[in-house]
């Protein structure tokens, strides 16, 4: 998705307009990345509150949405360190896999849930890179900008992640046993 800001500048309402136009997408991105909707909500709220206080500067940038995405991503990547004391809900995807599967679950559905669980246990930077490429459809240059690393590093994150996901394809996910 491009980062054209036309959608919200037309709304003409500054920060409020941006939130109205982009909150849903930002929240879904954060949820896909964290595999935890509560954590995603906390992160997005925190980021929006901080962004609001310096909105004029952010709005003047070429790509405000990209900047917000970067804030959300950084918040997540540094989150364990800063909030170690806080309750962490376990990965919902993993729990879904642990939970008894409905007998007539379509095979594809089960496969997809198994993939969710595998993604949920990837290292965070790899997971963020995967979400940016396969959920946000971002080009590698943009992924590099969001993660604050080089394009080469992005590709190595993604190739390692794909390798892990492939290698585990026929193995039960750890949390199953």
């Amino acid at each position, binding site marked *: 998705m491009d980062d054209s800001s036309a959608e919200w500048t037309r709304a003409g309402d500054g920060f*409020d307009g941006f*939130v109205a136009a982009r*909150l849903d997408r930002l*929240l879904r*991105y954060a949820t896909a990345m964290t595999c935890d909707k509560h954590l995603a909500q906390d992160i997005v709220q925190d980021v929006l*509150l901080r962004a609001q206080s310096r909105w004029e500067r952010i709005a003047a940038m070429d790509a405000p949405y990209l900047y917000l995405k970067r804030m959300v991503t950084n918040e997540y990547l540094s989150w364990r360190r800063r909030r170690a004391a806080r309750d962490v809900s376990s990965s919902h995807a993993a729990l879904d896999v642990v939970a008894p599967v409905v007998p007539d679950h379509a095979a594809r559905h089960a496969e997809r849930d198994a*993939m969710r669980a595998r*993604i949920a246990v990837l290292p965070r930077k790899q997971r963020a890179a995967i979400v940016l490429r*396969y959920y946000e459809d971002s080009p590698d240059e943009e992924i590099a900008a969001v993660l604050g690393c080089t394009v080469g590093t992005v590709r190595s994150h993604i190739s390692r992640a794909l390798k892990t996901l492939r290698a585990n394809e026929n193995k039960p996910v750890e949390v199953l046993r």
Partner: protein
Amino acid sequence: MTDQEQLIREALAAEAAEAADTRDVLAALYRGRARRRRPLALIAAAAVTTAAAAVAVVVPLTAGHTAAPPVEAGTSSGPRNVLLVGVDDGGRADTVMLAHVGGPNGIAVVSLPRDTRVDVPGRGPVNLASTYSTEDRVQGLKNAVESLTGVRVDHHAAVETRAFGALADAVGGVEVCLKAAVDDPFSGASLPAGRQELNGEQALAFLRQRRGLPRGDLDRVVRQQAFLRAASAKVLDRSVLGDPAKLAALVDVARAGVRTDEGWDLLAFARDLTPGTAVRAATIPVGDTPEIEDGKPLLAVDPAEVRRFYAGFTAGQATGGGTPTGTPAGDDCVD
């Protein structure tokens, strides 16, 4: 695309679909703003007020002591111009009204839209709302209003925005009428068309909504007036005045959410008000569409016209170039 990549996409889409409801985030964002800005709001004595709110709160204070109309009703201290400021959770002036109280023609409340263009020496053209600052409290706004209207402001009062919610709850709901159903996730306003009683939470959303209204903030001003007319009518109703529990709740609202200048003797002021006093509301004559100046949307205004209008309206004239917005008895549905 490989099958693995397709599966990854599906897995991520399923994960993303678990996202929390954006309305929860918006609500939390609102609470977050209030929490973070609370100290500022306190310093500023932040408030949202209108004449009707003062009436709504002050009259029952007196009525609680004297069930009969005050004996000394004749000792009126004369008409007073009261500046009523509503300040939102962020400490910004959100509502500005000038009330003419104690005159022979009931209470006249005149709204001054927040985007009204004013010239501030040293700052150039700015919107009216920005003359209220947390540093000098109401002084800058008072100066701007006095120079725009030519009226001397005798007193000022402020009510916190959220006090309106508490007010609605205290009187057991406030009736408004909407021309069309609204559903605005940002303010949380989700209301059907037609006549309805608003509880505190709905009242706040109704008063906050600015997006999605045909005339934006100008329509919101009309809503504030409609709400306050209905609220004061409700307060002056037997069902509230005669109910000790509701009176006590109102007094609590007043204590928590209404601030006035120190020199204002509220009880003396209240004695001048008689239950059933008519409250008329109007908006000063301003341009209907904002003009962009220095990147700020400002509503053009002619001070001479505003002065004529204010004098005429407070003297009992229904119109004078501004926008009267109904009478207490009027069947006025709002956008």
